[in-house]
């Protein structure tokens, strides 16, 4: 078990009050697992990713803990987190296009970064990995702006995984790319895992069909809470949570045509995280909702490796 | 209270700052302090030429220290002192014979001869030489022998000639004869060869230095010797700098207008002026309120006289100048010319500050406020809206015309101060497109004729560049002025007779209103040189100044009077 997250709560402090972006999240990640993290915008996916490496200054750790490779991950302590970063937990940010210092050659920047983390520069390994993602070694002698979007994205992937972290968090790494680059990047992620460069991975995305291509498991979030986690195929073909079901059935696929089969969206909007309702947060949009839903459903395992937070699913 | 002394800060500053300002002892390139006279206040820009012809912008001392005139004139006593000339006299009504002093040599060793004198005066035949006008009445100048020159006149303008005798410096023919007109008038003349006590030493952007020359003729001939080995005239960059230098003994003689100097004189700062109390300075020229007599209502003598009575000169003298100047006599003649003022005419016709009287005079003359705006109208009922102008940036004058405008308003004359650019004002002045302005361009000289020439000269030109800016046309008085010119300087009674007639017309007509006498700005310190001219009984009475044209008025004598301070 690489990662164990226990009842993690992270709020954002705002003028209007706390945004309960992550409100009690418990899950675990097996060795070598690639987990897709899906959900509507604003459901707390990025927050979860960031809280595991403790990034945002406005983020407040309210409670809960995380354990990585049996060691406590200090998710509540910025300072203590630092040794883990890069070495143990690493991140491919959503903003890969601007993640590299524009005024340093990439190779030099990596050298300086490594040295500052007390690691000897590893040019050869770097070049090898650059080759692995399909770039030529001379990108290291270039400035970030001289690379295209896809190239930058891949370069950041190389940098983030350079120290073979146990956990890699990839936040929306493909959403800015077009379909063919998306495919290439996604395949690279897969390859990193297959080559053991990273032990396990959380791939944050809102494109379920894409994450389905590479993930072993998919976890669906809704309004700051977990809705369902299951192996990818199960999520796609036999979801148990009404939200997951609605989500999957609203995805048009090649071949599905308006005239032939009318897809349905999910009516309504997710609740505000400032003051979320008690009980199941999907209740107001849920076609299956009943009285019990006023109570909060546990995120319970309904089958091996399949957990759902819904009274109806239990 | 104007008795307020400045804060001690100034005093305490002196020692510390002096360390940095005072001449370096014995350092290479420094002038030994105890042999050097530091002066300032004449030169406002880097010394650019040493051309004695350009007596409006040559380096300080070019005329006087290097080039010398035939005579000196002492304005206090009214006496001419033979200088390069040994003597001079009218042999008949139209012939003047001049005897040169023996043994005067140019700094290049050649002797001064009658030919040089003839040459110098004949340069005036070039139209652009400032004394070209001499040749309107001078017929010829001939060298009779090596030491004698005979001048023949078509019309003997004695007064003007007397003026020329001390105000024109002599040039060496052998150096100048090859020069073209352009070179004569506009040349730099960077190696001046003169007869005077000093020679060129060096110059820089911010100074010119003169070094004492051996064998100056006056040492032997008159037993007079200039004391400083070096004279360093410092280019003024501003009043503040001059004040600072003066306070730190960086200047021995400052000829600047320094506002607030009275406080320093009264305090214990080691700064002295000619008089220890107001007006502190000798007078040097008259500031006139020039009225454009060709414009309504300034064309009306009654109006002009009313304005004269309205102006609160005392307020200017005290408020603006802090008593550094003194109010002018109604004739405007400088105190040095007191004897030429006909007091009976003045007491009969002279004006004094009296706003009630001014109002009455206006009313009597028909200037009434008919539309009730508080200002009087022209006799024909049209509005009077006048402007009084001085160049922008001339701050004491700017202040002064504010006072004048206020005064005028107080008697119901709508007068507003304006401050055009100097050039614009020169334009307006010469073309007669102004209402009122202040001017003080005529300086003290040997003769009040100068002032009346300035006030009354005819004919009016399209451009009035130097005289009669008010375009006052009065043939009768101009004839009298010319008659005055025809009086010999020693004929004091004859002069007075004409002057009395002129002054009568002047005071009746008031073409320009004398306001105050500007001082011969001069502040001295005694740490290195003492015995400066002052009103004290035993002190020299020569002019304590390096101003242009003033060395000939006795400034050079000051240099022979001062003494090194002991110790």
């Amino acid at each position, binding site marked *: 078990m690489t990662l164990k997250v226990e009842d993690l709560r992270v709020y954002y402090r705002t003028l209007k009050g706390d945004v309960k972006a992550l409100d009690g999240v418990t899950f675990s990640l097996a060795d070598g697992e690639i987990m897709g993290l899906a959900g509507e915008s604003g459901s707390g996916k990025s927050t979860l990713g960031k809280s595991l490496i403790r990034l945002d200054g406005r983020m407040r750790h309210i409670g809960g803990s995380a354990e990585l490779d049996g060691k406590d991950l200090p998710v509540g302590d910025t300072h203590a987190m630092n040794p883990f970063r890069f070495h143990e937990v690493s991140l491919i940010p959503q903003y890969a296009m601007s993640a590299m210092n524009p005024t*340093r050659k990439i190779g030099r920047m990596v050298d*300086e970064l490594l040295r*500052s983390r007390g690691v000897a520069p590893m040019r050869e390994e770097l070049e090898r990995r650059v080759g692995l993602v399909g770039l030529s070694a001379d990108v290291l002698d270039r400035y970030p702006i001289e690379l295209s979007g896809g190239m930058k994205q891949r370069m950041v992937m190389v940098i983030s995984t350079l120290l073979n972290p146990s956990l890699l968090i990839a936040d929306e790494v493909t959403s800015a790319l077009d379909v063919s680059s998306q495919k290439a990047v996604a395949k690279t992620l897969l390859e990193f895992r297959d080559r053991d460069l990273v032990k396990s991975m959380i791939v944050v995305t809102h494109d379920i069909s894409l994450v389905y291509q590479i993930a072993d498991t998919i976890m669906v979030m809704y309004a700051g809470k977990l809705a369902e986690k299951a192996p990818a195929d199960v999520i796609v073909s036999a979801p148990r949570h009404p939200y997951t079901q609605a989500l999957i059935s609203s995805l048009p696929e090649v071949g599905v045509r308006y005239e032939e089969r009318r897809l349905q969206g999910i009516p309504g909007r997710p609740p505000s995280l400032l003051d979320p309702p008690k009980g199941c947060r999907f209740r107001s949009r849920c076609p299956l909702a009943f009285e019990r839903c006023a109570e909060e459903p546990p995120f319970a395992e309904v089958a091996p490796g399949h957990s759902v937070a819904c009274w109806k699913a239990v | 209270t104007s008795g307020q002394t400045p804060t001690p800060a100034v005093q305490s500053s002196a020692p510390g700052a002096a360390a940095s300002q005072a001449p370096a002892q014995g350092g290479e390139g420094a002038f030994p302090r105890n042999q050097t006279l530091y002066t300032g206040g004449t030169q406002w820009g*880097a010394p*650019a030429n040493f051309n004695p012809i350009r007596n409006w912008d040559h380096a300080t001392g070019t005329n006087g220290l290097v080039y010398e005139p035939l005579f000196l004139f002492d304005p206090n006593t009214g006496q001419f002192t033979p200088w390069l000339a040994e003597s001079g006299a009218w042999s008949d009504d139209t012939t003047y014979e001049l005897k040169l002093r023996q043994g005067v040599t140019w700094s290049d060793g050649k002797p001064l001869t009658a030919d040089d004198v003839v040459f110098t005066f004949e340069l005036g035949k070039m139209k652009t030489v400032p004394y070209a006008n001499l040749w309107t009445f001078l017929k010829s100048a001939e060298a009779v022998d090596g030491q004698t020159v005979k001048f023949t006149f078509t019309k003997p303008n004695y007064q003007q000639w007397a003026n020329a005798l001390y105000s024109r410096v002599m040039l060496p023919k052998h150096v100048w004869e090859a020069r073209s007109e352009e070179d004569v008038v506009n040349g730099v003349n960077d190696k001046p060869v003169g007869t005077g006590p000093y020679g060129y030493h060096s110059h820089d952007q911010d100074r010119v230095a003169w070094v004492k020359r051996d064998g100056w003729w006056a040492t032997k001939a008159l037993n007079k010797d200039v004391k400083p080995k070096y004279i360093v005239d410092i280019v003024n960059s501003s009043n503040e*700098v001059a004040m600072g230098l003066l306070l730190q003994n960086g200047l021995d003689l400052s000829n600047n207008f320094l506002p607030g100097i009275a406080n320093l004189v009264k305090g214990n700062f080691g700064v002295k002026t000619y008089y220890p109390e107001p007006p502190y300075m000798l007078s040097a020229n008259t500031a006139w309120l020039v009225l454009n007599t060709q414009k309504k209502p300034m064309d009306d003598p009654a109006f002009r006289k009313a304005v004269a009575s309205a102006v609160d000169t005392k307020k200017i003298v005290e408020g603006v100048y802090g008593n550094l100047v003194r109010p002018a006599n109604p004739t405007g003649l400088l105190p040095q010319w007191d004897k030429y003022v006909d007091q009976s005419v003045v007491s009969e016709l002279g004006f004094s500050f009296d706003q009630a009287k001014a109002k009455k005079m206006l009313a009597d003359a028909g200037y009434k406020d008919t539309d009730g705006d508080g200002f009087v109208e022209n006799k024909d009922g049209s509005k009077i809206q006048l402007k009084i102008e001085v160049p922008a940036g001339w701050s004491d004058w700017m202040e002064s015309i504010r006072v004048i405008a206020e005064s005028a308003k107080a008697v119901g004359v709508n007068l507003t101060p304006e401050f055009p650019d100097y*050039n614009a004002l020169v334009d307006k002045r010469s073309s007669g497109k102004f209402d009122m302005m202040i001017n003080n361009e005529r300086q003290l000289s040997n003769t009040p004729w100068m002032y009346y020439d300035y006030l009354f000269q005819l004919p009016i030109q399209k451009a009035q*560049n130097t*005289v009669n800016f008010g375009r006052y046309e009065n043939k009768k008085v101009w004839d009298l002025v010319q008659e005055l010119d025809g009086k010999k300087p020693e004929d004091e009674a004859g002069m007075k007779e004409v002057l009395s007639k002129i002054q009568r017309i002047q005071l009746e007509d008031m073409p320009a209103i004398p306001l105050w006498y500007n001082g011969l700005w001069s502040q001295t310190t005694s740490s290195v040189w003492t015995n400066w001219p002052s009103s004290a009984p035993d002190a020299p009475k020569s002019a304590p100044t390096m101003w242009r044209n003033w060395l000939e008025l006795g400034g050079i004598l000051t240099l022979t009077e001062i003494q090194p301070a002991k110790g």
Partner: protein
Amino acid sequence: MRRYFGRKLLIYGLTFFAAVTINWLIPRLMPGDPVASMVSRANLAQPEAVAAMQAYYTGLFGLDLPAWQQYLNFWGALLRGDLGISIWLFPTPVADVITRAVPYTLGLLVPAILLSWWAGNRFGAFAARRRLLDNTVLPVGYILTATPYMWLAILLAWGLGIVAGVFPVAGGYSYAMRPNLSWEFVGSLALHWFLPFLSLFLVAFGGWAIGMRNMIIYELEADYSAYLSALGAPQRLIRRYAFRNAVLPQITGLALQLGVLVAGALVTEVVFSYPGLGSLILKAIQNQDFFLLQGVFLFIVIGVLVANFVIDIVYVLVDPRTRAGMGAEA
């Protein structure tokens, strides 16, 4: 890259052209006649002499030709380095007058600009996001930038010069000295240089410090900084990168501020009667010496343009983004 410089040069060329044209045009729009005022100084009474003098000066300054020819001649003379003859210091050529003043101005400006830029940026970067410094020292920076150059100069002259008597308050070197190669003279130069330098330096320093402080905060918030801290890079490295990137806009800022700094130097010189271009301008204005004014103006324009160009080159050298052909335009 060549395009970039070509474009820049075009702008500088046009600017210079505009400046020269303004320079040529304005005296011709002004009220009054410069020749007349020159002549009036010579105290000539005779109309003929006045006319002769007038003709002489008019010819000298080429005012008798048709306007287009005057304009062309103006350019011709300019390209020969002939800026005319000073009226105030007649008959010194304007170029000579300026040449004498330039070392002083440059000696003041160049160190003041470079040092204030360097120190201001360092300090601003250091203070940013450090609460104590940010709240205590930076307000001083605001006050310094808001201070008119001449006022600070006056305060320094008064406080350190007149009251404390430590520094002289006027001139380029002691009036009692003649320029020579001795330590004494150099010491005197330095002593006179210090206060004007200090007042220029302080005002500019405040500006740079504040500018840098704001810039670097943006940089510290930039994505690449966030990424670096996500990878656990120490603050030191992040700040170093941020500084490097924040300095780049400050270089452009230097180009933008150049005019202001030159202006500051001019008024500062006036306060200290420092014998540079500023004092020269003042004199030219006071003496209606338009040829000198024109000359100084042109010199300043050329100086600023050249400095701008140097800054452009430096910018290209240090910023890979422009080198990669992005162009530096906003």
